[in-house]
């Protein structure tokens, strides 16, 4: 996978202490691992070296963003920024209704 976009660094005194589990993915004996944020829900997904994108979720052919396996299974495209705009619109609407009483 190219250009995951984020990364995690792990500092520990020994190999045993270095093991982490990031959102269900075991990272063993790595000091640094790439991550990406799901383009639909923003879950941080760990990317193992030389990994096929299909193993981590997939590529949304609609928004061309990397997505997690859960969003891949949903099968529809709702980018996170669209969800955020919908939430803000809802919040503005509720506020205006409260002002009207």
């Amino acid at each position, binding site marked *: 996978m190219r*250009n995951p*976009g*984020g990364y995690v*660094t792990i*500092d*520990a005194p020994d190999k045993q202490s270095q093991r982490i589990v990031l959102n269900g993915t075991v990272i063993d004996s790595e000091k640094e691992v790439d991550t*990406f944020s799901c*383009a639909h829900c923003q879950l941080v997904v760990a990317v193992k070296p030389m990994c096929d994108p299909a193993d981590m979720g997939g590529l949304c052919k609609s928004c061309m963003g990397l997505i997690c396996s859960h969003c891949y299974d949903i099968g529809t495209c709702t980018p996170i920024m669209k969800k955020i705009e919908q939430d803000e619109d809802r*919040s503005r609407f509720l506020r205006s209704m409260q002002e009207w009483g």
Partner: protein
Amino acid sequence: MPYYSVPGYVNTMTTTYRSAATVTAPVTGPNKRCKVFEMIIGGTASPNSTDCAFEVDLSRVTATGTGAATLWTSTVMDPADSAATTVANIAFTTEPQTVVANSTLYKIGMNQRATVRWIAAQESQYLVNTSSSGSGFVLRALSAAFATSMGGQISFME
């Protein structure tokens, strides 16, 4: 776009989640979107003699309740920038948030001796929050055996 950091911590970890830091949109405006780009997590006390682990979770919150925490003025990374509109609280002793169910964005199980840093190197990878009042992120931790303190810094842009 100004950058800020919030050095959260949990004084005494327990077997249930205890919040280290929250960054939320203010209840009364003006509100801005908060974009988290970095988290640094690690134990801040001497490790237990028996090896143990702790679990850290970053989730979304919809409203800040009336819990007990220390209000923190977000540290401005560039002194030329103005203060953040996002409200930050650290070191909760009573959990106040309305955590959105199944909204975990970053959950990590780690050793007590490790320090873990996540950073989004591209803006497309930032964890974005809505500007709706009271909504935001909570960084919280629990441990079955590590009962001392941990630090969890959140860095964000708005």
